[in-house]
């Protein structure tokens, strides 16, 4: 019996001839998470346009399909890529500022790509839904009124909630024109009348939210 007891030998820890490097998997995992969070924050902070848009995570899938009463609309995912590079020397010397610099650079690069993609997508979407207005040849105020007329505006907070994308020249021009329009009682009245119509339309939309037979 003693012989049988002897045959099983697992007490001694196995000896390893070569040195294995310690890998710290919990730190590696945490690093990946922290790095992408950081890059995402940098991207949002570096572009005021992106910062105003709510973000939503995509846990799985490669396409988003929106269904509503008008049908369905497919939105394919687009990839934004960036390269993050830090010299080996910086890694060995624990140069954290160099790492941060590389990540900030990557975040800004991503922000540029995302903003470009967003503008393209907006152009495409607004063209499809008829929400693009070309103001060529029209007087400024009339152009704006027509553009707002075509826009669906919500009043969730009691105030009109809408944004317009305009070119840089028009943006500058509007900055000067709007204060002038505000001084004109006719224009002001027309604007308030438009906002009243939009508010009533919003309230009507909201009232129709009910389940019927």
């Amino acid at each position: 019996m003693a012989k049988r007891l002897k045959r099983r030998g697992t007490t001694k820890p196995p000896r390893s001839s070569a040195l294995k490097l310690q890998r710290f998997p919990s730190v590696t995992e945490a690093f990946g998470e922290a790095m992408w969070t950081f890059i995402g924050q940098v991207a949002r902070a570096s572009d005021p346009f992106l910062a105003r848009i709510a973000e939503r995570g995509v846990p799985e899938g490669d396409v988003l399909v929106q269904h509503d009463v008008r049908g369905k609309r497919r939105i394919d995912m687009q990839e934004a890529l960036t390269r993050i590079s830090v010299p080996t020397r910086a890694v060995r010397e624990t140069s954290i500022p160099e790492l941060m610099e590389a990540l900030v650079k990557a975040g800004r690069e991503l922000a540029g790509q995302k903003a470009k993609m967003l503008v393209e997508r907006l152009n495409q979407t607004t063209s499809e839904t008829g929400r693009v207005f070309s103001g060529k040849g029209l007087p400024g105020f009339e152009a704006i009124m027509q553009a707002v007329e075509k826009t669906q505006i919500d009043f969730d907070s009691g105030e009109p909630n809408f944004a317009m994308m305009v070119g840089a020249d028009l943006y500058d021009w509007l900055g000067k024109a709007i204060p002038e329009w505000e001084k004109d009682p006719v224009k002001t009245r027309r604007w308030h009348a438009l906002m009243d119509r939009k508010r009533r339309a919003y309230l009507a939309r909201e009232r129709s939210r009910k389940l019927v037979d």
Partner: protein
Amino acid sequence: MLGNVLASWLTSLRERGEFEVCFRSLLRAQGYVPVGTRTTHGPIEYGKDVVAWHPQEEILYLFQLKAGDVKRSDWPDLDRQLYELAAVPYDHPNYVVDAPRKAVLVCTGQVDATVQDLIAKQKHAGRGLGAVVVWDRETLVKAYSDDLFSVQVLSEAVAIDHIRVWSHVADYGADEDDLWSFFTDYIGLLEGAGGRARHRILSGYVVAVAQLAQRYLSTGSSYSAIDCAILGAVVFYGALLRHCLSRKVAAVYCMTLRELLTGLLQGLADACESDQTALSDLSDTRAGLEEMFLLPLRVHSLTSKLSLLAFMKEQADETDRNTVGLVDSIVRRHPSFSHVVSERQAGSLVVTLLALLRHGFPDTARDAVVRALNWVAGHHGYPGAPGLPDPYRPIADIPSHFLRPRSRSSGPAESRPGDSSYLLPILVKFASLRGQRGVVEKNWPLISRTTATEYIPRDETEMYSRRSTQGELRDRIYPRTQSWRVLRRQCSRATPTKYLSLAKAYPETLLLLALAYPWRAALCEPSFYLPTRGKRE
């Protein structure tokens, strides 16, 4: 030494419900199939406490169990039981009645020589059993030792937790909290236990630590195995103090833990010895950018473990300058040793520096202190500095600590004189002890902006607790203008003797404490390990 613990554990078991359960576990580990899960005791057991079928041998084993020694006075009862064991057949629907059988007397103690003689003379073979085999404590210790990592030797109260921890082991960094909870719950069984039960808990605990360390080894992580054993030892020391166990009671278990740890550390040192080229660059080429944080952790982990081995060998009267030579080589070749990324590295830093200073590598230690002090001051000493994660935070928090958007504009968070630090005062202490005035002077504007934080336990038991709800958390703001002489005097304080009762018996305990609970590193006073002072600048 593990044999002594196993012997002590076996001796502490009662036959019913304790030894019987563990014995079945041993049988399963050895390929037997115990028949039924419950044994009927009493008049109808007919001498058979446990019956097991061995599929390979196709033999039915009939075991009569005895807890403790079998004395001459036990012979009449034993003779009857052995007779019944032999004469009364074992009926079970799944086994052939006339299958070959073997009778075994299993005893957790020793069998009196006269009884052995009587057993042999009774010629039970004549009753159709063949000779009765005796498994005494020595045989059982060998059996449990050989199958240590397959058998369940735990108290029922912690068995489920043990299985859970066992099955989830991944990496010490991720498992630390679970391990600590398990060890604490297990050793907590000592509350109210006395005599034999106390020995059973202590020996079972030590075996559980060895089993979990082995589990990490089997997953290829010798570092986690060592960290697990260190944590197990520190929780054990804490329990010794909390439950006021005598040194005599604790000695065998302390020695076994020391032996386990030394064995694991020696395995790592052997790997280093056999692969010295790998020591010249501990960078992991397969890792990504996270390597910036991993390399300092890796270097610290390896050097502190080798340093600990050197201390433990010294305790065993083995001189081993070679191991510290490896530490010296690693520290010199890796500037990242001084580039601490978390104050949690305080423990490994202290242990490594002490080993270098104690074993004749003062220059390497001094250089490392200068570099580390410059580095840490650079991370703490200016308004809005990122600081370092405090030692209580797990290493997994390191990346998120650094990778967070940080405003450079002044704000409420940056208006403080400086971040608090547990590590900076330790470095200042080492620098002042070694007379390195230059580096302290150079960094004083930065050091003096830092709040030095330290926990002062009320007694030794609190010192060995992981987080204490009592004691003093002391914030010390350095004066703007400091006297070098006063600073040196403050830094050269000796550890109060009220903290040293355990360390005097087992000098490695303070080092283990610093490694397991790095927030206690400041209590690992250099004066305890470095009685003589080195040269001054």
